[in-house]
């Protein structure tokens, strides 16, 4: 009986999970039918430069976020200094702004014609410089945008360190620096590593920032292979290399998380160190400075630009932009959440089957993959179907599917499945087997069990997952850029296109709308999160 039913659920779960994971397989498959000539051109002339510039970027950003994120987390958790309490929360705020928005604000201010440089040339008589030259400016931008990942994870780890451990170190005569390097930091190392690796995945996946800075990485090369050379094969081959690197990063991230075992469950807010006098003010100044640079000043700049250009930039077109952004966001969130819920439902079959667990893992790998890989995988897959179709005397389906909303939604679902799944799975985990058993004993069918027991209990996770997916879909750039149907420009696209042309002031208008919507969604998320933690 159980076996028979399991066959059915195995087929369904496998079908959905493999469908979601399809873009990953497809890019790997591209090596089976390579396009030699163009690939030779790419690999001879571009590939080595691409690899070295990507490595320089990853190295710089990795070291930068590690230093900044760890130091900030340590200061807010372990040291009492003026303003520390609200800065602890304020340092999360850069999460609310998409990376490419912060990038264009920095560019707008520090570009050759930006007022910071104009002022430096005119008032200080300094020579002008090109912010896009070299890699320091883009590395600095990424560090300011992504340090919250390391900050968030390391802060949580420092918070869970036993205060006694630090006090024991102090009473044995160790200076604050020695306690930091020999006690706190080694204990937090897995969290620091996990934060750095997530940052590296995000950097690798980024399209907006690197293209605004004209910096060549794999994502820009993938776009150029498809956009400039019209070769979906080469784009897919490049994408598969990116998949390889992303998998390596996932592997290390999982490994470093697995070692995080030194945690205590008691979280205290007592701080072992009190900074006084000049030291206290210097620490305040430093932390506040990071907050200003990474959030407050860019935000203020956006508001100023938005205010001054809203009259020129605002038009009826914005209703379309908001409408298409909303439709895409809501549909993608709904579909993702429905599929994720189906995959996350508690089931006897799933528990017993290694196969099912693996295909679900596969379906959630998309979060480490750039949107451009998703897009290329889908385009390549459709193209292959067309080729097979033509071979058997049929017609190409490219023109029907390319640039259709289905394809774009497919990409979103693949990319963001992991976010929805992990949130929904977490709430499914809390359903104890006794609920299932007692419902079964009371004669409930599987359908009734799902409808009346599982779904109501999973609702907080489902809502949270949907909101998180919505925030990400709304600001998604690379997949939208490659796959959007004609006339389906989103706020993200509008922001990117205006800023790519250097029209930073006007780009502030769609960017602000996006930030406000994002903040609203996050506020709802926070509210639900608080509510569910109070009831559970």
């Amino acid at each position, binding site marked *: 009986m159980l076996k028979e039913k399991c066959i059915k659920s195995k087929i369904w779960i496998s079908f959905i999970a493999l469908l979601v994971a399809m873009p990953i397989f497809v890019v790997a498959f591209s090596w089976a039918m390579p396009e030699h000539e163009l690939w030779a051109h790419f690999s001879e002339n571009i590939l080595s430069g691409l690899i070295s510039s990507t490595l320089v970027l990853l190295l710089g950003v990795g070291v930068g976020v590690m230093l900044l994120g760890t130091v900030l987390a340590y200061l807010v958790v372990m040291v009492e200094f003026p303003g520390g309490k609200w800065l602890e929360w304020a340092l999360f705020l850069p999460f609310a702004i998409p990376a490419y928005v912060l990038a264009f604000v920095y560019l707008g201010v520090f570009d050759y014609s930006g007022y910071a440089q104009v002022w430096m040339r005119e008032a200080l008589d300094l020579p002008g410089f090109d912010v896009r030259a070299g890699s320091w400016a883009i590395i600095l931008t990424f560090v300011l945008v992504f340090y919250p990942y390391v900050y968030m994870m390391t802060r949580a780890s420092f918070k869970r360190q*036993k205060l*006694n*451990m630090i*006090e*024991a*170190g*102090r*009473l*044995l*005569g*160790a*200076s604050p620096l*020695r306690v930091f390097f*020999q*006690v706190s930091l*080694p*204990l937090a190392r897995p969290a620091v590593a996990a934060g750095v690796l997530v940052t590296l995945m995000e950097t690798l996946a980024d399209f907006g920032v690197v293209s605004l800075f004209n910096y060549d990485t794999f994502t820009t090369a993938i776009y150029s292979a498809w956009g400039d050379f019209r070769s979906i094969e080469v784009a897919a081959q490049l994408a598969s290399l990116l998949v390889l690197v992303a998998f390596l990063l996932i592997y290390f991230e999982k490994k470093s998380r697995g070692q995080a075992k*030194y945690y205590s469950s008691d979280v205290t807010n007592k701080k*072992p160190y009190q900074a006084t006098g000049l030291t206290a003010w210097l620490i305040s100044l430093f932390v506040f400075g990071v907050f200003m640079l990474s959030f407050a000043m860019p935000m203020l700049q956006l508001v100023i630009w938005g205010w001054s250009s809203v009259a020129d930039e605002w038009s009826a077109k914005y209703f379309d932009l908001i409408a298409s952004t909303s439709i895409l966001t809501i549909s993608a969130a709904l579909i993702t959440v429905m599929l994720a819920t189906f995959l996350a439902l508690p089931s006897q079959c799933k528990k017993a089957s290694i196969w099912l667990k693996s295909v679900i893992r596969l379906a959630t790998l998309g979060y480490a993959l750039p949107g451009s890989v998703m897009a290329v995988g889908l385009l390549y897959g459709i193209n292959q179907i067309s080729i097979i179709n033509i071979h058997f005397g049929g017609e190409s389906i490219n023109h029907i599917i390319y640039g259709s909303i289905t394809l774009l939604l497919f990409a979103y679902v693949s990319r963001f499945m992991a976010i929805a799944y992990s949130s929904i799975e977490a709430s499914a985990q809390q359903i104890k087997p006794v609920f299932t058993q007692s419902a079964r004993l009371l004669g409930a069918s599987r359908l009734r069990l799902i409808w009346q027991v599982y779904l109501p209990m999973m609702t907080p996770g489902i809502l949270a997952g949907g909101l998180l997916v919505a925030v990400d879909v709304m600001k998604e750039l690379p997949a939208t850029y490659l796959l959007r149907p004609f006339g389906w420009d989103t706020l993200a696209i509008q922001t990117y296109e205006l800023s790519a042309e250097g029209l930073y002031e006007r780009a502030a208008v769609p960017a602000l709308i996006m930030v406000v919507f994002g903040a609203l969604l996050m506020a709802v998320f926070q509210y639900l999160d608080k509510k569910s933690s109070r009831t559970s």
Partner: protein
Amino acid sequence: MLSVTNLSITYKNTQVLNDFNLSLKHGDILALLGDSGSGKSSALRFIAGLDTVTSGSIELDGKALSSNGSHLIPAESRGVGMVFQDYALFPHMNIEKNISFGLVAQPKVKQRARVTELLALIGLEGIEKKYPHQLSGGEQQRVALARALAPAPNLLLLDEPFSSLDKNHRDQLVLQVRSILKKAQVTSILVTHDETEADSFADVVGIINNKQLTFK
């Protein structure tokens, strides 16, 4: 010699300890008895230099450590050792590294000799390369004691160090630790809420009751 004078502690506007005075001779072992919330742990943490209090002064071997509720010498440089309730051994360091943590100013050879000496004192020879999680609760507690004793502190504070052990182990360990401390001639203060434990461990037993310290 340790003297604590005029110590008062207030928690969230409620006074829990008033005009606490204490004086201990070199090598004395004192047990402080009291219910939870009586301020005994706070008094200990003030003596260690970890927390500040409303008022109170501390002098150790003629040196003023704290005065008027705040600290003149920080916790790092008081030469006061402490054994915590949950041991607080560093999980990422082996036993040797844990015990020698406070000996960083000494040359490696001396450090190693001191570790061997202390492991002999606590009766756990040969476990230098083990990690805390490989030891039993009682063994971890003795290592924590060795770590606190390693820099030869002028004063040792023990914050309910036996409370997470089972009864049989506890009775045995209480006597063991007492004899170790007597051998090392360290002035010590034990905080506990167990009267039998206090009686068998200490030379002097102080009871905190109704904000006041009285001696048994």
